[in-house]
């Protein structure tokens, strides 16, 4: 796995600014990716997904970009709000395509 221990990378942004959270994945055969948001004491919540035949997908205030050349995924949040404060995980589907592997997460801290 890609877990890196207790010290989560943290991104601090001002309310109203745009946020970009990055994720590097490991397997060029991975074909499906999901971003999850996890608030303290809760389970991960689905935000947006993208398949490997796409480069970009947009949702409400969120955009996911996929760069397969460098195996990089990003989540962009527009006009970040205090309610966006959480830990964000990317998950990749690989191997037999029935399992997902999660990154170590990025903590987003939105300052009012």
């Amino acid at each position: 796995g890609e877990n890196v221990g207790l010290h989560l990378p943290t991104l601090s942004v001002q309310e109203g600014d745009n946020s970009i959270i990055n994720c590097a994945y490991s397997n060029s055969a991975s074909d499906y990716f999901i971003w999850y948001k996890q608030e303290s004491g809760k389970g991960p919540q689905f935000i947006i997904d993208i398949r490997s035949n796409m480069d970009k997908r947009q949702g409400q205030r969120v955009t996911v970009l996929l760069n397969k050349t460098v195996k990089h995924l990003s989540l962009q949040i527009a006009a970040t709000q205090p309610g966006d404060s959480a830990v964000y995980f990317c998950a990749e589907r690989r191997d037999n395509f029935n399992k997902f592997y999660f990154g170590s997460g990025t903590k987003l801290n939105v300052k009012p």
Partner: protein
Amino acid sequence: GAGVSQTPSNKVTEKGKYVELRCDPISGHTALYWYRQSLGQGPEFLIYFQGTGAADDSGLPNDRFFAVRPEGSVSTLKIQRTERGDSAVYLCASSLQGGDTQYFGPGTRLTVL
């Protein structure tokens, strides 16, 4: 419109005891997953059920861990002879089919004293 539910939300037990954690998936979802999440880390895969059968149990750390899904719906994760290192949040997720988008429950926080 129930999502994935898990019970109990918190479980405190003593080292050496046996615990059962329950997961009730979204109705109609054939695939069910168990994950373990330690503080500051992402969910770590334990086991995946497709219907009643364990299609992949490669993430179970040792033979103290076992899971069942006898009727293809509710699943129970069983941990024997608990150790302090088993303390974590145990998450359950379900999807329509294996490999589809997974939806998570709130988790069970297990503390082994």
